[in-house]
């Protein structure tokens, strides 16, 4: 076929500038940080920032799938608090019989993963099988988990037995080859997530569902199952994040994980995933998470006019980061 006229669709997907947008924003932030403070690029600071990004990061990877498939989950923050509380309660309770040691840590981890999975499945079930708007289901479960952890903690703080905490602490603070565990786990979650999203059937099906549910259905994609899986996976990842979180603070209370859901969703969107579904990228989410963490970090590097205005600066940077992305897209 000799048609000169079918030109346009031939242009192959060059790494469009929209791809570079978030990366660019990140680079700008790093440059600002480095110019403000000599220690910014030091190992200690980088380790700190990456390790603390891990919680939201791990959750945001799961959120990327949920949003790509056209869903939303507002409950992750309070779910994390609840799981942390549960984990602490169970571990404290098992202490007399199991003693301080690896088994009790494994028990705690198993509880976290299981609770996360069940919580995710529950959200997913209400959303898919009963067909209730995701916003409502997860707003409801957000209230429920937050309330439950307050109740478990009797209004105060649930704390891991101190000895146990000392034993568990290395899971946050140590690592291999100088790289701490949260960073390693985060990296693994990201790699697996990226592969799942871009190289596996699951990722494609998520995008298809988010793009057009009935087309996916007509193409033999099990819409409900796939969507349920995204919530289950997110729940599981909340469990994983909690496993990393508990050794850091050794406690859980009504304020644990507050607003994590907003941060996770923001990271996903800053990363270029479409809020209404149909397109998602895990690596973008990572960039989004790093951008958010760096903003906080940079605000601590210098003395600002007033700490009251931190929130305003954060807000402005978030909007700017996304404008940059759009502008880049427009030009590209």
């Amino acid at each position, binding site marked *: 076929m000799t048609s000169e006229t079918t030109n346009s669709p031939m242009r192959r997907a060059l790494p469009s500038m929209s791809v570079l947008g978030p990366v660019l924003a990140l680079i700008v932030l790093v440059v600002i940080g480095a110019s403000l403070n000599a*220690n910014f690029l030091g190992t200690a600071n980088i380790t700190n920032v990456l390790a603390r990004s891990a919680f939201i990061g791990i959750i945001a990877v799961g959120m990327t799938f949920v949003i790509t498939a056209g869903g939303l989950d507002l409950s992750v923050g309070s779910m994390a608090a609840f799981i942390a509380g549960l984990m602490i309660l169970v571990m404290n309770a098992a202490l007399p019989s199991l003693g301080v040691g690896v088994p009790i840590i494994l028990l705690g981890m198993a509880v976290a993963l299981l609770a996360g999975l069940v919580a995710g499945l529950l959200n997913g079930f209400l959303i898919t099988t009963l067909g209730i708007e995701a916003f409502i289901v997860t707003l409801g479960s957000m209230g429920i988990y937050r309330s439950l952890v307050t109740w478990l903690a009797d209004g105060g*703080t649930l704390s891991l037995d101190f000895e146990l905490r000392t034993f568990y602490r290395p899971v946050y603070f140590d690592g291999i080859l100088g790289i701490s565990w949260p960073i390693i786990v985060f990296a693994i979650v990201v790699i697996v997530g990226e592969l799942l999203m871009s190289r596996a059937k699951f990722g494609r099906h998520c995008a298809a569902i988010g793009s057009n549910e009935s087309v996916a259905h007509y193409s033999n994609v099990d819409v409900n199952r796939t969507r349920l899986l995204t919530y289950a996976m997110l729940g599981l990842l909340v469990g994983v994040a909690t496993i990393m979180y508990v050794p850091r603070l050794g406690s859980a209370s009504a304020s*644990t994980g*507050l607003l994590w859901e907003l941060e996770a969703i923001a990271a996903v969107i800053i990363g270029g995933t479409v809020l209404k579904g149909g397109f998602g990228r895990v690596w973008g989410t990572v960039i989004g998470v790093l951008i958010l963490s760096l903003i906080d970090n940079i605000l*601590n590097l210098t003395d600002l006019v007033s700490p009251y205005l931190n929130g305003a600066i954060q807000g402005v940077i978030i909007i700017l980061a996304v404008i940059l992305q759009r502008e880049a897209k427009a030009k590209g």
Partner: protein
Amino acid sequence: QDETTVIGVSIPAATHGWAGGMNFHAQETVERLEETYPELDFVLTAASDAGAQVNDIEDMVATRGIDALVVLPFESDPLTPPIQSVAESGTWVTVVDRGLSVEGIEDLYVAGDNPGFGRVAGEYMAEQMPDGGDIVVLRGIPTTIDNERVAGFEEAIEGSGINIIDMEHGNWNRDDSFNVMQDFLQKHDQIDAVWASDDDMAVGVLAAIEAAGREDIQFVLGGAGMKEMVQRVMEGDDMIPADVTYPPAMIATAIEMTAVGLVSNAPVSGTFTIGSVLITEENAEQYYYPDSPF
């Protein structure tokens, strides 16, 4: 090592009245001390939850090389290990208000007294209502602080004939407390007094009572020493006969003691408890700070 000494100050964000007052005092003190002592440099951060506060402290250590840390822990338990590691690295640590879960970490502790806060309030109630009576209680945000206060209060009124007929969380928030109090007024025909346990909450409670036009409530007892409330005590307002202090300015005391200690080479260590004091018409004037935002 250069000449300047860096002091990190980490406090919870100004999410409600008392915390706002505390933020105000912290900033004001930092500015004042920076001017007085050119060799001092301050890093002030305000965190919205315990995790964020740990981040702030990590950042101070990693990027600002602090020599001393003044910290008002968002919550005691989660902040204990991070502060402990700061202390172990040889940094001076001053803890304010909420104590750590492990003893002996801090060099200086400027303590607030939460059980005492509840107790003073309870004792006042018992004294005002010698024949007992029915009261309702508004509690703060569910936290250990709130639990300690309520426990202290309940202990103090035990056996006094005072009944707590209802208790809900007003979350140290005016609007929430207004709503809760409106509903309490619907639910109970006779309420003798209210323990609002915080002056912000007292504001909401008073508005609800006023709007309902109820005469049965004899008085409302708040707490923390908000200037408007202290003023009303001073003026002899019947509804606000007293208040219980929990001065947000304790952060200023702590920062100042730390700074002076570092500069003078005569560091002050130990524990300074800032007890909760009952404010009444007689002594109100000395607790009235018209320039504070709280």
